[in-house]
């Protein structure tokens, strides 16, 4: 999905990403883990065209995010981390608008299906302001799916949402993954990543410090759960891992 990517902020003293090189295969359920400030959202922002890498290249489904940005963005659906919404519109209007931005103006059948799968059907005509935080989060997921992107990026989609939504969300996302959608997930709920993702990358201070199949990674770290492996990797010297995997 992206190769040799360097993400540098305008502040010359701070480099958000450093020599990231990895690719995610079609149909994978891939986790991108790391502590706050590790560079996960910076990486996603580059893929989504919200930020520009100071060097290196990134592509989505083979489309360069800069040179072929229109195809790259059509291929990508992003659920942003922040709980953002447009207070002027209802849920259905928000979804129709988002769909129209992608050039699909008569998309109500798919919008109805998304609403049903995310438990939003009875809120379709409710103004966004009147929704609870969890409901707003569902709408964010729905907005990322309106154009049926082959790649779905979920940036901490279950932060602050109830158990019911988590379960229905993961059922829906797993179904999309089985249908062939590639899923890139960032989360601090490591049990979710362990249960859902076939491969995991861990970022620390802008560098990849672990990248492996979930089971292989757990086995290598002593056979415990992902949380134990995460803590162990984050507390170890980054250069040890990089040397081992050079």
């Amino acid at each position, binding site marked *: 999905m992206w190769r040799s990517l360097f993400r540098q902020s*305008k502040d010359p003293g701070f480099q958000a990403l450093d020599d990231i090189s990895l690719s995610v295969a079609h149909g994978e359920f891939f986790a991108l883990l790391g502590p706050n400030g590790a560079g996960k959202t910076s990486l996603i922002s580059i893929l989504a065209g919200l930020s520009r890498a100071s060097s290196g290249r990134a592509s989505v489904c083979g489309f360069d995010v800069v040179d072929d940005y229109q195809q790259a963005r*059509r291929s990508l659906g*992003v659920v942003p981390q922040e709980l953002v919404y447009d207070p002027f519109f209802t849920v259905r209007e928000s979804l129709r*608008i988002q769909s129209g931005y*992608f050039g699909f*103006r008569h998309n109500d059948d798919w919008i109805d299906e998304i609403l049903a799968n995310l438990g939003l059907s009875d809120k379709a005509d409710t103004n966004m302001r009147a929704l609870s935080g969890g409901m707003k989060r569902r709408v964010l997921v729905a907005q990322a799916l309106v154009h049926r992107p082959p790649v779905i990026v979920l940036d901490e989609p279950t932060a602050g949402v109830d158990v019911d939504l988590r379960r229905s969300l993961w059922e829906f996302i797993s179904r999309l993954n089985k*249908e062939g959608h590639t899923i890139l997930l960032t989360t601090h709920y490591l049990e979710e990543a362990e249960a859902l993702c076939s491969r995991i990358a861990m970022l620390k201070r802008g560098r990849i410090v672990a990248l492996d199949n979930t089971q292989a990674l757990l086995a290598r770290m002593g056979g415990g759960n992902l949380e134990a492996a995460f803590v162990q990797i984050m507390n170890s010297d980054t250069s040890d891992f990089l040397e081992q995997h050079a």
Partner: protein
Amino acid sequence: MNTPILKARTGAGSGFPTLLGKELLRFWKVSFQTIAAPVITALLYLVIFAHVLQDRIQVYGTVPYTAFLIPGLMMMSMLQNAFANPSSSMIQSRVTGNLVFMLLPPMTHREIFSAYVLAGIIRGMAVGCCVWLVSLYFITLPVSQPLWILIFAVLSCGIMAILGLIAGLTSEKYDQLAAFQNFLIMPATFLSGVFYSVHSLPPFWQYITHWNPLFYTIDGFRFGFFGIADVSPWQSLAVVAGVFLLLTVFALRLLASGYKLRT
């Protein structure tokens, strides 16, 4: 892996009509604030100034002051609202964070520019038409050159909509936008001949006024009603069209660069 390889959905059109529709819907949903309020403000100006000055001033020799004032008030309302539409939309989206919904889709900078500017023009024209309709209660304006009225209305609203877009793009906080509005837009509109003919000013202020592009928008607009103006309508058209083109180029480059939109 046995899952099918999915590709992006085909048959997508442009995002422009939806963005335009959203910008129109946005101001229509609060039309009491975006249309009715500026019409009432213009009406108050009209009542007060016309009442005080109607019998004391005649402009262009024969035009009663109330008649002279109405096109100026129409244009002032149009300019301010054409500016307000894109600037308020952009700053609200930025502050609330929902600007990301417009940045994630594959819209080009030209589509974004056209939608915001056209919505601003439509809001400006809607307000202008309402002011005109309300003014019929006071006086029926002559319409000498309807095409000139239309051209100046569209280009003038276009100029202000582009300025509004630029202000919205460059402002990160409401007070920055307010400064743009209070220290640039408001003085430029009030000092552009809305309430007076430029010939009634001392030579120094006449000279200053001729450097204000908004003076030409109002003067050319008035020419469409009365067939007479302070300067040649062709000169006004040249200035207004030139400013429109310059601002278009600048705003398009700003959008294309992703200035304060994409880091």
